[in-house]
């Protein structure tokens, strides 16, 4: 469904371009959850933003292709791109609380992004958020970080997209909420036959939720491996040390 072949992602600097990521080759199929692991600052967020051309073009140069059902997202016209983003792709970023306008009541976002009221009500209830009539009266700054994160998922899911990209879905939420997110994502992929791409440093969550796992290190992405294989093999230095720390914490 999504076939990415990006040769390079560079940041444009005054004197020169600096290469951030290279050789990003992967395919996303329907019905699966894919996780990309990587350390702080390894370029995880840049990677998922590069796929749908969300990086500002005056600052970043992306060379390659990202085919979504046959349309190259990186080389199509703005109108078509906007159409695809609107109907088929949703993102949930890490600091969602900052992506709401503090001067607007949440009602504004519900009207624009979650028009199906009964579906929204169910999702709010699922994620243990206040009922629609109460939450719509709030402003974004009245939400806690974890609530904002869960609410963004409600908006993403109610659009019924083909793919959801999640950037650090477990940061700022406790384990109980993370369990809810996990179960919902499984339902979304398995029952509705949709796809989810997660970038995270939370290995535990990734190992519980994913079907396939890959890792970013030294500016490039490893192939996606079935979860069990990823966690039972030691492929290269960074992978080895990541798994070693994970095991040490778990022991």
């Amino acid at each position: 469904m999504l076939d990415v072949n990006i040769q390079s992602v560079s940041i444009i600097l005054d004197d020169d371009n600096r290469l951030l990521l290279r050789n990003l080759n992967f395919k996303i199929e329907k019905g699966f959850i894919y996780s990309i692991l990587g350390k702080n600052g390894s370029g995880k967020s840049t990677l998922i933003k590069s796929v749908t051309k969300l990086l500002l073009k005056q600052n970043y140069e992306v060379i390659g292709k990202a085919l979504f059902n046959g349309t190259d997202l990186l080389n199509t016209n703005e109108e078509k791109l906007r159409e695809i983003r609107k109907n088929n792709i949703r993102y949930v970023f890490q600091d969602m609380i900052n992506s709401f306008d503090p001067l607007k009541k949440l009602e504004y976002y519900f009207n624009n992004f979650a028009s199906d009221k009964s579906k929204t009500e169910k999702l709010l209830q699922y994620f243990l958020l206040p009922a629609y009539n109460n939450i719509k009266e709030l402003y974004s700054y009245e939400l806690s970080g974890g609530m904002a994160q869960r609410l963004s998922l409600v908006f993403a899911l109610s659009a019924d997209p083909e793919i959801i990209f999640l950037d650090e879905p477990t940061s700022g939420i406790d384990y109980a909420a993370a369990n809810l997110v996990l179960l919902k994502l499984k339902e979304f992929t398995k029952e509705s036959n949709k796809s989810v791409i997660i970038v995270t440093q939370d290995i535990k969550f990734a190992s519980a939720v994913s079907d396939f796992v890959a890792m970013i290190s030294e500016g490039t992405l490893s192939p996606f491996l079935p979860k069990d294989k990823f966690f039972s093999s030691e492929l290269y230095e960074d992978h080895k040390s990541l798994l070693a720390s994970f095991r040490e914490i778990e022991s």
Partner: protein
Amino acid sequence: MTELLRIENISYSVQQNKDKMVVSILKNISFSINEGEILGVCGESGGGKTTLAKIIAGIITPVEGKIVWNQNAVFSQSSINPLQILFQNNGEILNPFRRINDIVTEALRIKNKDKNSIIQLKEKLFDAVGINPELRNRKGYELSGGEQQRAALARLLAVNPKLLILDEPFSAQDVESQLNLVNLFKKMNKDFKVTILCISHDLNILRKLVNRVLIIKDGEIIECGKTEEILKSPSHPYTKFLLRAENYSLALDELHSKK
């Protein structure tokens, strides 16, 4: 074991603006912290963990109860401020107009008059937290999140506190950084003789650091004891719930019946 401070029957509540309802945040909390120990506080978001830290630090006043410091333990060390907190958004304690080096020097000057000993202590501190000479000349916002946290720690330790409170120090860190932090905190506890109270929602990593842990739910201590024992045989259903949540083995109806 000498007691460093004792928290006696602390309660805290706030009144909501909208409907004037009184919401209880902490209920009748009592425990003590021994000198030299590393104590953990664990519980879910909104459980009152940060409020408790702020009350111990004297930032907010409890509605009921009191904090009793062991005067002998505190003043034998001639501490000016016996307590320091590392907050969650620790970058904000670093003055954006000043270099890390100057921030730490200024804190050291409070208690040390001799120039040479300030330089020596500074070296010791920066080495301990792993801030290399190049980073020392930067300002807070020129450092990564992890570096900011370590720079902030150097500044906190510079005033030789008796008690260091860490509020969610592990959130937003990868596993390797988490383990490095655990080792760093243990080293500080030993080398700088500082007692540590560590707040975290993550029992998984907390157990690597703390000898004793309090589990808080809805503002009440529901379990307290040696970390190993609590993890091995949790007695309260909520602790069991927490442990199963960490392994992502909860079913939907369990999660929904929680609230």
